[in-house]
Each structure stands twice: as C-alpha cells, then as structure tokens.
C-alpha cells in the first residue's frame, strides 16, 4: 500500500510542480478574462458618446431631463439635445456636434413613431439610449413603485409540478452549470488522461518500466498512476472552480449578471457521483491504451477515439433541453460514456427518475472498476512489448 502512495505522489508531483502545469492552470482564467476583455473592447469600439439631437415639435415631452447613469453601468448614457426644428438639428449634425437626430412624430403617443436621421451609422448605444430617454421622461411623473415595475418587466419562473426545481429568467446560471461542469470535466479528463498516457508511454520508451515492475506490482503501479493523474485533473478542476467562484463574486460588483444559481446539495452529489467514476473509467482506459501502444502518436490517436463519445451530448443540447424525458436524452444519460454530461444536463430540466440515476451511477462505478482491472491486465501484458499491440483477447486470457 505504501508503494501505491509513493507512485501516486511521484505521479502527482511530477506534473503539478512543473511550470507547464501552472501555465495550463492559469491559461484558462486568463483566456476567459481575455474573452471578457475582447467583448468589452468590441462594445467600446461600437460605442459613440456623442450626443443625439431630437425635435419635439408637438411637445410630447414635458420638461425633459437626461437619464441618470445606472449604478452598474460602465458607460454614461448618450445625451439627448433638443432642437427647435429639423434645420438646426441638421446643421448641428453636419458640424459634428451630434451623431444623429430623432424627430418625434405627432402620433408618437399612440404609435411610438420616431424618425431617425443620420449620415453615418450611429453608435449601437445611440438608439437604445434615446429610447430610454423617451420612456424615462414619459413615465417620470408616475409613482416610484410603478416606474420600477414598468422598468423591471416580468419575472417569469418555471417550476416543476412538485416544486422541487425552478428556473427563473434571472438565474440562467442553473442551465449553464451542467454545461460548464461538462466542459471542465472534458478538459480535466483529457488533461489527466493525457498525462497518464504520456507517463506510461514514456516509461515504456525509456525502459523505466522494467525497473518499476520489479519493485512494485503492476496493479499498484497502475492504480497509483491512475489516482495520481486523477488528482492532477481534480486539482486543475478545483483551481478553476475557485477562479469561477471568485469571478462570480467579483463580477456582480460591476455588472448585473442575475441572481446566483440556487444549486442544491443533491445536484452537487449527482454531479460528483457521475463525474468521479467517469473520470476513473477514462483515466484507467488511457493508462491501458498507453501500455499497449508502441509510441505516443499512436496512443493519442486511439485515445482520441475513446474520448469522442464524451462530447456527444453537447451536440444534442437542444433536444435534451426541450425534451429531457425523450428517448434520446434518456439513453444518452444511461450510456456510460455519454452519461457524465447528459445526466446532469437532463437533471436541470426534468425530474430524472431515481432508478435511472441509480442505474447510471452503478454502471459508471462498475465500469470504472472494470476499466481499472482491465488496464492492470493489459498493462501487465503490454508494458514490455514493443512493436506489437495487445489484443483484447490476450487481455482477457490468463497472463
């Protein structure tokens, strides 16, 4: 048992203590941050803070006031400047004082008709801000609660019949969670599996394997490697989750991102219950592939085919969302290779019958165990074989 921990710790340390790993860990939040930044830059590039003009010949607005800046808004609203007639507005636009002007039509109160005049395409914000300026000034005399109600709009909550789950338009993150967990799972599985694959192929290539198997049993060696690399993946996952939590804590200070998702403990257990055995299953399989393959490139090709089914549920996100109890969604959540993504996704949109959850998790656990066992055997046969792959028939035969 002690040797298992030695293998485990060595395997864990040799990846986690490397610059490459730290770089990989930080690259994820870095890229997310970069995407957010690029998003801002692209909004900013389309933003034009030059005022807009308007002509209210029919006195629709009474004592118009500028819309105050919103609490969590980065940009000031575009100012709306009144002009007595179209001629003066046009002159101001030609001089470059305003980016566009709006003419409120006589029928505005009944039809909402407004004409916009502009030489160049105005900033994306100009029309929206002028619209807000209009509604702000039209409703400004009304009592405060009414104004708030009008501005907030509807709050639609979709609730299951037994009231166990509900999704509001504001807590959209509940839907995002299984997708996010799925993406992180796939990345972590590929990272762990990749490391494991690499470790086994390298040890075969540099012949360290012979020394190792005369020191520890192939089972201990394989288990230590699988768990060690699994922990590397989980460490990565944990760090990313911490970054996500930090991000979700900081982001609402600056933007309105909706209410935090009400994640139940049952749901977290479901996630762990499906993802963990799936992780072991894939990692062990990668180890087996590594010990049968004769070189890294070949190992990666086989591993690619193996990890492909895991991402399949992502192609069917829409059918799973719209018909979470349909046969496609049910089968995807029962089939062990697609279950890690499909089951948690389904569980957001429907009450998954308990027997299905139990079946899936039992299947995954059994397969994880089987995968470990098989990889131990394949490993034993394939570890010192160079140039010839191990067939499944050989793996099942007594070695």
């Amino acid at each position, binding site marked *: 048992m002690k*040797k298992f921990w*030695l*293998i485990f710790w*060595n395997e864990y340390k*040799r990846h986690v203590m490397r610059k490459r790993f730290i770089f990989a860990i930080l690259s994820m939040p870095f890229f997310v941050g970069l995407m957010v930044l690029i998003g801002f830059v692209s909004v900013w590039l389309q933003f034009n803070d030059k005022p807009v003009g308007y002509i209210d010949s029919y006195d629709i607005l009474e004592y118009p006031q500028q819309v105050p800046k919103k609490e969590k808004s980065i940009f000031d609203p575009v100012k709306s400047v009144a002009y007595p007639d179209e001629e003066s507005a046009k002159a101001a636009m030609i001089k470059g004082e305003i980016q566009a002007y709006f003419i409120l039509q006589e029928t505005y109160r009944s039809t909402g008709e407004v004409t916009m005049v502009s030489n160049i395409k105005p900033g994306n914000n100009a029309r929206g801000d002028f619209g807000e300026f209009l509604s702000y000034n039209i409703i400004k005399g009304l009592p405060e609660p009414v104004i708030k109600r009008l501005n907030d709009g509807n709050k639609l909550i979709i609730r299951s019949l037994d009231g166990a789950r509900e999704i509001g338009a504001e807590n959209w993150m509940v839907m995002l969670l299984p997708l996010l967990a799925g993406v992180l799972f796939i990345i972590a599985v590929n990272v762990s599996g990749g490391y494991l694959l690499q470790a086994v192929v390298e*040890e075969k290539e*540099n*012949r*360290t*394997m*012979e*020394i*190792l*198997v*005369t*020191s*520890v*049993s192939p089972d*201990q060696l394989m288990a230590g490697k699988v768990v060690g690399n699994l922990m590397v993946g989980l460490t990565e996952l944990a760090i990313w989750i911490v970054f996500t939590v930090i991000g979700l804590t900081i982001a609402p200070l600056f933007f309105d991102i909706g209410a935090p998702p009400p994640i139940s403990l049952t749901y977290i257990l479901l996630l762990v219950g499906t993802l963990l055995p799936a992780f072991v299953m894939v990692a062990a399989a990668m180890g087996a592939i590594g010990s049968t393959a004769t070189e890294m490139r070949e190992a990666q090709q086989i591993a690619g085919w193996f990890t492909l089914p895991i991402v399949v549920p992502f192609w069917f996100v829409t059918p799973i969302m719209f018909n979470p109890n349909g046969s496609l969604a049910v089968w995807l959540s029962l089939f062990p290779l697609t279950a890690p993504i499909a089951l948690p996704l389904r569980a957001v949109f429907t009450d998954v019958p308990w027997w299905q959850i139990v079946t899936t998790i039992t299947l995954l656990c059994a397969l994880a165990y089987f995968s470990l066992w098989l990889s131990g055997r394949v490993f034993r046969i394939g570890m*010192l074989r160079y140039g010839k792959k191990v067939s499944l028939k050989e793996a099942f035969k*007594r*070695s």
Partner: protein
Amino acid sequence: MATINVENISKTFGSLLAVNNVSFNVEPGEIFGLLGPNGAGKTTSIRIILDIFKPDSGKVSILGGPMNEEKKNKIGYLPEERGLYQDIPLERCLVYLATLKGIEETEAKKRVAEYLERFDLFSSRKKKVKELSKGMQQKAQLITTLIHKPEVVIIDEPFSALDPVNTQMVKDLLREERAKGTTIIMCTHQMHQVEELADRIALIDKGKTVLYGPLNKIRRQFASEAVIVRALQDLPANLSGVTEIIKNNSHTVLHLAPGKTPQEILRVLVEQNISIEQFEIALPTLDEIFIQVVNHAGATK
C-alpha cells in the same frame, strides 16, 4: 538450498519459442553467468525469474518460493536497456527508485549521496539524467540496482558503455557483493568478464540450455589433451609422449599422446633438465567454448 531454482521453464511469443525447457540453480553467494548469443532467450529467462512474464510451463523459485511483493525489495535488477527517468535530476530519480525498494526517503537520500560519491557522480547529482553520458547513466543504473542492499542481484550486460577504469570498478563491486554473500546472476555475452568473475555458468542457445555447471569443470571438459609450457631454452624436437609441438611467441603448446597425462610430460621435461618458467594444462577460453558449442549446435541443426 538454492537461492534461485529454475525448473523446465518454457515461453512462447506468438510462433516464437523464446525459452525451451530451461533449468538451472543459482547457489547462495555465487556469481552465476547466464550466457548466450543475442536472441538466445537470456533476457526472457530473467524476466520470467523476476515474474515480469509468466512461463507457459515450468516453475521458478526465488529465495525459497514463488516471487511476491515482499521479495521484490530483496532483489536488485539492472536491465539490458537502461531505464531511468530522463527529465528529472539524477538524485531525485535515484531516491525515488530507492524508495520503491522499501527504503525510507531520508535513508535513501543518505545512501544515494554515498553511492554518488563512490561512483564519482556527486557533482552531477542536480543534472537531469538525459544530460549525463552513457557511462554515467550506466553507473547511476548500478546504484539503483545495489542501493537497497539486495540479497539477489540480476544484472544484464553490466559492462556495456563502461571505460576500462569503470569496468574494473564494477568488477570490484561485484566481487565485494559476492564477499558479502549476495547472490549474483550476470547475463552477458562478454565471455572474458565471465571468466574473471563467474563461479558457475549456464549457456543458453536458441532458448535451450546447452552448457551448465562450474566454470572450471566446463573448461576442463572442453580442454584438449595439451599443455602450455614456457621454458628458458628451446624444447627438443621430439619429446616422449608428445604427438605435436606448436611454438607460439611466448609459449609452446604440447599435444599429448593418447593415454599420457600432463604429470608424465612434466616428469619428462624435468628429467631432460629443461628449465621451466610456466607449465599449465591448456584450457580453452570461454570464448572458444562458446563459439564451439554455438557452432556445433548450429551444425547439428
């Protein structure tokens, strides 16, 4: 009781019969030479002894029974193709492999430092293994083999990539280990090294044992009826009991007539007042025996 007992082991890979009914014993505290040409089945036999491969038939007993995890800590193995982690510092690599042999980390560090000093590698301890020369890696591999003070040492081609100075050092080390009571199996095709070190040998060819026993006995068995003589003067052209006299630069080989013994020839030389500097039975070298046996096996086939 023999330290290693190999009984009629056979192993097939696909259609290739790599080991065919091989048997031998290795006694406690001896250096046993496992010899054979390339592809003879030496390494497969060793892997079967080490329980890396299971034999198709036959059985192996090591340290009093079948191999188990506990016994792995009592065995040191130096494989033919060296196996060290290339991307980590030498010291870390050696300490890790030592801990896998059941030594506590602090003790492993201490022993690694001692061995590195002895093997003149201490200044390279922080270097990555791949930065070391072939000879240095070979010495590092030997440290891995011996660091846990094994009861049984199995070494496959221990002298490859070593210069004469380091070859001598390794020989001394092996003799030292034998003096401590360690049982050593040395697998090689460098016959002169075996002649110097081994007590007993087994010669494997095409998966079969073709020679087995104490080295001296085997050499005598293959000895032609001849003696080597180095004398201060020229030997007479005719000597009683000698059928042929062959002169070499430094010595003369006398082929004995049937039924004559070396003692009788020595008496004849003494009676003829010939001053003798050296008189010995002409034993064939292991190289000669090896070639003779392997060629003979090939011819019979």
